[in-house]
């Protein structure tokens, strides 16, 4: 059994969804971890779920980035443990500099909740090995501050290092630079993504959404099994 810590902050709101989904994957043992915890030993991976930590005050993720649990996470990230931030989790990871770039207000200036077509560009991270390179998948998004921004030089570096893991296949989502939907750090163990894979796991009635988010969690399980 691999223990996956789901970090919970005041205002997180997808932690129970991620918990429910993870517990359907045999081999993964999810556990909710409250943000005041300052000892993160004993876990094999971490997920920071979506939500509105601290009500998105100042900027999404800005306040949570200062919490004790993130300080610990920074130490652990160097040990190459898989760390996944989803939506607000992604925002927390960039605000705490665990990932490069910034996430800011959507170019529509509105919250957007819909199914997004995506293309997997890097299938060698712990969260994407189950996908084929350039595979196209559909996963819903739901965010108000998801526009990925970074300066040109840093962007080129991301491309060179293969750090852009997923892109949107449509350009009416949030105005992200070159349609970036997910990035990872240089080592590849820390990844942030705006789409919500946990929302595309059940068999949905709506044809627009096939359960293509499962690949993210299956990849994680396989990674933990073999590493």
């Amino acid at each position, binding site marked *: 059994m691999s223990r996956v810590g789901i970090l919970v902050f*005041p*205002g997180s*709101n*997808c932690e129970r*969804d991620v918990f*429910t*989904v993870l517990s359907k994957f045999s081999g993964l043992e999810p556990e909710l971890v*409250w943000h005041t915890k300052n000892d993160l030993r004993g876990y094999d991976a971490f997920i920071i779920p*979506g*939500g*509105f930590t*601290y*009500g*998105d*005050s100042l900027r999404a993720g800005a306040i949570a980035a200062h919490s004790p649990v993130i300080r610990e996470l920074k130490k652990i990230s160097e040990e190459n443990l898989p760390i996944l931030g989803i939506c607000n989790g992604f925002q927390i990871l960039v605000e705490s500099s665990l990932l490069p770039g910034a996430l800011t207000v959507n170019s529509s200036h*509105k*919250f*957007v*909740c*819909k199914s997004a077509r995506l293309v997997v560009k890097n299938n060698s991270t712990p969260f994407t090995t189950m996908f084929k390179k350039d595979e196209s998948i559909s996963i*819903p998004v*739901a965010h*108000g501050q998801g526009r990925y921004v970074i300066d040109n030089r840093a962007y080129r570096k991301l491309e060179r290092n293969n750090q852009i893991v997923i892109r949107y296949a449509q350009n009416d989502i949030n105005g992200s630079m070159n349609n970036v939907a997910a990035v990872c750090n240089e080592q590849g163990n820390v990844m942030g993504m705006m789409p*919500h894979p*946990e*929302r595309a*796991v*059940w068999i*949905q*009635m*709506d044809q627009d959404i096939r359960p293509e988010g499962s690949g993210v969690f299956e990849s994680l399980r396989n990674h933990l099994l073999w590493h």
Partner: protein
Amino acid sequence: MSELTAGETKYLRKKLGRKPSAFELDVVSAEWSEHCSYKSSKKLIRKFPNRSKFVIPGLASDAALLDIGLGYVLAIHIESHNHPSAVEPYGGSATGVGGVIRDILSLGARPIALLNALRFYPLDNANKRYSQSSRWLLRNVTKGIADYGNCIGVPTVGGEVEFDRGFSNYCLVDVAAIGISKREKIIRNRSNKRDIVFLVGGATGRDGIHGSSFASKKLSGEDRSAVQIPDPFTEKLLIEAVLEAVDRGCVNAMKDLGGGGLSCCLSEISETISKGLEVDLSKVHVKEDGMSPSEIILSESQERMLVITSQTNQAYLTEILSKYNLSYSNIGSVIEGKNLVIKYAGDVIMNLPSELICRAPLIDRDTIPPESKSEDRNLYFRERPSDLYKSILKVLANPNIASKKWIYEQFDHEVGIRTVLKPGTADSSVLRLENGKYLAVKLDGNSKQCDLDPYHGTMCILSEVCRNIISTGGKPLAIIDHLQFGSPENAHIFWAFKQSVRAIINYCEFMRLPVVGGKVSFYNENNLGPIKHSPVIGSIGLIDRSEWIMMPRFGSEESIFIIGNTKDEMGGSEFYETTGRAGNGKVPIVDLNDDMRNAKAVLRLIREDVVSSLHDCSKGGLAITLCEMAMRGGNNFQVDLDKIPNSCSSISNLLFSETPSRYILSTNKRKRLNTMLSAISGLEFSEIGMTTNNGSESFLHHSKLNSPVILTQKNITDSYENLGTIMERTPVD
């Protein structure tokens, strides 16, 4: 400060045997406002049927409880925030969401879904000023709902929007919430002497003082008292903390704070637990210094809950509250007797029976039916295929009909991973439940029809909302209602209110549906007078199996059937609205027997697995229903209008009449379906055409037309996206 009438003042003095103090008067007049006391409506709405084998009686006060099996219960409630939203649409709508969520929370249930019903002036009207104001209201109301609901992590799964000239400089914002719980976790509101009363959550400030009497007044200019600032982050903490406290068994009784603030909350909970309360207002945590006892007790500051716990559990409760960094104060305790004792810094400033405060003297209002409307003018409409074609696109583009994507894409409708049918995909929203069943839910309203005829208009809404549930495969389980009218002091308006109530009683008794909750909102008036009568009805239903969940999307090569007769019933129709004939025509009449027969037939077909797609036929009429099924399925249709059972005097009436109780469905088992329907005596139905996937055109044939009406996927889709087009229009240079 007192808002009491002369009669009420006299009654109060007689009951007290003395002159009330200024403080007592403040408390009593808050509770005796129309908004809190239902003094005009209570006698009437008491007659709603409210029993069924699903309803759990006697527990719920803030929201109704339904037993859905395997130990699970659902809570449901509806509220409006009309006045605050009309002056501060962002804060008003947001705090409206917060309020209805706390109603669910106060039962100990976890909120799992939100819906809303909104009414505005047309967005794109010749009156530019009203339209501009309407777009401002729509933008900010939807943003308020989105920012609040999204932040607290409760999906907004559906709703309803209507645009009408009756809402100049005004809007109606109704919000409904659903919660789920295990039956044994529900708060029973039983409390013992010496239990401790905590006020939890946001600090109490001067905001919103007299808000509930504000809601019981006509809107006049700027009124600061009702401005409320939303704090969804605190609400989210409140939800998690309260549910954790419930889970650990440290809540004996609980109530949300809404209209009337502490004064209503304390007197009502004292009544509910049948005990007295002693509370010291100087212990309340406040936002600002120097608040008077009246200001503290009347404040309608948001994001607060009253929690009553035992002495032994007190430490657990405060530990949980500290975990979530929530402010709280221990403001008093439960006492012997049935009085509400209010102190300030130790001195008793009020000691009154809670019952006296809670039970305002009820009023019998006068009713006068309106002058009967002038006869229907004979209106000529040219019925060439090109005219019919244009009308179809025009009705599709009418924001009342057009896609509401611009609105619902702002709402997180997926958090909670239980939304199976999302907004925009089907007639009602469908949610997966913990007990393996599925919940279908929808709100509906139709102020155009209700304005012309409140009785039949309300009937139409009831019929439509139930058809929406049935069209996704659900069996209606219960009804909630929200009755929004102008001033009850106007005898014409009160007459209409009574008609609406009568319709609900008649429909629900016939269908054996309990009315499990609701709200009355009077004094909805703008600068031009009262709004159109706007009852909003909600329905929830259960679907036992996922195979029974239906959607309105045509497949290819399927036979199309219609169930139900189509009549010349054009009053309040979108076709008349779009073609400049608003106010004319007869409002459709619901034939209860037909309604029941058709509904049962459809549910049977679904359970026999002979239906491929299904849609109820209502707003916009048959033409719109077919176009929607074509768009959603990406397939086309060939329909022979001569085959439709009808008594219409024209082709346009046949296409656009809003006769209730009709369904359109497609099937690839036409023979079995035919046999099954033929066996039902009295059922009107027929096979009217086929779906196709070759080419991109749909055809409507009629023997009186020299050529068919031809519609392309692109035409109908472009028209259907008109709401977004209006709201996002880029400037032309």
